[in-house]
């Protein structure tokens, strides 16, 4: 058997070289980022590569207060948690209907969700922005016509956390509905039928059987949705205009324009920006890898 001799020594050497090079290229810039976050701006301008002569932590405190990161991280957690939970709940609900309740509407509706996987909200950001702001205007006009509101400036969707979360839930749904439906199909019909014969309503079946049994796929959807929402930029950039409702990436970007010459704080802000998802990745690497293996992420 030449089982042990998969490749010759040279081939193996090249393979390690390629692998090592790519891994180094991936990890080194991030390490470089962390190292520089402990340098003063003056030191960075002189020496961009070596370790800091003096480790400075004030970059972090400075960046934290300048970027109002406690508020932005709070917002990001809110957006991410509610959007992920919402997507999962609505997706499993719909999946239950598509997979277990026979209905002639399933074909076209489920089909449209699957087609939606190929659409991106980024390409639709302009019409979506118009739609959201016009919906507010229409509702505002109606409220005014009835005399329930004096000012014209009414916002339910545009520049509100509520509107942003609804959009994020909707954006995550096609993939979530697809994954959940394929999963719920694998739950035996007999479970649902037995519960029906015992007189359980569909809501009971959903809460007691389908939802608990969908935990694995809910986990997969969650670990894929969380980074998507946390990192989303294009939409929140145009839908949310007031600073106190923005998310972390928008706050980080401010260090690139107006504050760009303060390198120390910029590096600290970047590290603050990458830390949450890095921790999330380290904590849930197994589940994330499994989710990505299904081919469910847009690159």
């Amino acid at each position: 058997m030449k089982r042990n001799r998969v490749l010759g020594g040279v081939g193996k050497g090249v393979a390690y070289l390629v692998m090592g090079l790519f891994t180094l290229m991936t990890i080194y810039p991030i390490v470089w980022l962390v190292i520089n976050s402990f340098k003063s701006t003056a030191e960075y301008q002189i020496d961009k590569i070596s370790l800091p002569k003096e480790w400075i932590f004030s970059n972090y405190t400075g960046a934290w207060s300048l970027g109002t990161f406690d508020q932005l991280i709070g917002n990001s957690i809110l957006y991410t948690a509610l959007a992920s939970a919402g997507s999962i709940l609505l997706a499993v609900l719909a999946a239950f209907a598509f997979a277990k309740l026979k209905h002639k509407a399933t074909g076209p509706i489920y089909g449209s969700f699957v087609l939606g996987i190929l659409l991106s909200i980024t390409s639709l950001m302009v019409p979506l922005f118009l739609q959201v702001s016009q919906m507010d205007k229409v509702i505002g006009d109606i409220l005014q016509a009835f005399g329930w509101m004096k000012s014209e400036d009414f916002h339910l969707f545009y520049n509100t956390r509520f509107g942003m979360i609804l959009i994020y839930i909707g954006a995550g749904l096609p993939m979530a509905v697809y994954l959940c439906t394929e999963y719920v199909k694998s739950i035996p019909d007999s479970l649902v039928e037995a519960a029906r014969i015992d007189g359980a309503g569909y809501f009971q079946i959903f809460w007691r059987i389908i939802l608990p049994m969908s935990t694995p796929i809910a986990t997969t959807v969650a670990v894929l949705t969380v980074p998507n929402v946390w990192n989303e930029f294009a939409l929140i950039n145009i839908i949310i205009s007031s600073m106190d409702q923005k998310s972390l990436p928008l706050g980080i970007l401010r260090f690139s324009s107006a504050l760009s010459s303060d390198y120390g704080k910029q590096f600290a802000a970047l590290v603050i920006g990458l830390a949450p998802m890095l921790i999330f990745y380290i904590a849930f690497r197994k589940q994330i890898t499994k989710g990505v293996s299904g081919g469910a992420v847009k690159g």
Partner: protein
Amino acid sequence: MVAPLRNKVETSRAYWTFVIPAFFLYLLVFAFPIVLSVILSVSNYNGGKLFGGDAWTIVGFQQYEKLINDPNFWMALKNNVYIVLISVFGQIPLGFVLAYLIYRKIVKWGEGWQAILYVPAIISVIVLGMMWKLVFAPNGVLADVMNGMYAETFLTSLKHIVQSAGGLTHVTDDFVKQLMNISNAASLQSFAHPVSDLKDLIVGGGYTDQNLPVFLSDMKNLLAPTWSPDFLNQQDVSMVPIMFVTLWCWTGMYLILFHANMQKIDDQIIEAARIDGASELQVMWNVIVPNLSGVIANAAILCIAGSLNTFALIWAMTEGGPMHITQVLAIYMYQNAFVGHPNFPLANAISLAIVLFSFLLIGVTLYIEKKFGGKQA
């Protein structure tokens, strides 16, 4: 089991109760905006209220005509095609080869490599874009490193020149000319008569063989060539760093995708091929690729859909500049809708164009897979 009528009504009611919340949000976020963009792209609507505001009407396809005649559109499209190409023909093959190295245990610690290579894919592209901007910027790390290398080369050559001239005691015209040859052309322009001026400078500067290091360092500061990242202001070339970062970001994701699916392939096929004398390369090309053609096509489809919508990474790196040369379709759309005088009909036409391009390229991918793809794993 005969379903009583009450049962059927209840099932139908439950069905719609379960489907409607998700379907409504889906329509709200995807379907209505598409309909809206179709209507607005052929209208003369330009801001204000859609209902009950200034009147607007359907005026026809003039925005599409404008689009076709706008050189910025073609530039954005071309840049976007670069991103699609580096994604489909860069990320996917590279991810595939790396996955193969791990799958065949050609390299050890597969899990470790895989874990690290995926890291960029999960971090905000805003953070990563800003990070790479600090690398590629005119005063960034890359410039520093290159300038350092230029200075090193300059010093080495200068030492040679000094050595062959036998020290600094007799500065000849020839010496100065040799110095000029290795110098930065731009720095020399500040001298009216470079040869005599430089000679005066060196002789008058009091440089001797004893303080040679001072001479070297002064000459380096004054004359060493500097690396200029001007090429990043050139059309097409300016996309190279962005393409590099795109490749850097997402390759790990395809590595994971392909590696997971390779593990579903029956080992015995590969062993049989190996015993028949096939090389690793042949096994990869003739056994693994055909087995995974469906997965590769899926990857390509998601890759196309994703890269046609690329926005945040480029926004963080260049904002589409300088002078629009790194614009892609999504940024071009953003600029037309939200910067300067908004042109909403045009922006909506671009939005539709992106959707149509996605479906066109995805259709082509499906066609290729159907025609040339191997059997499913």
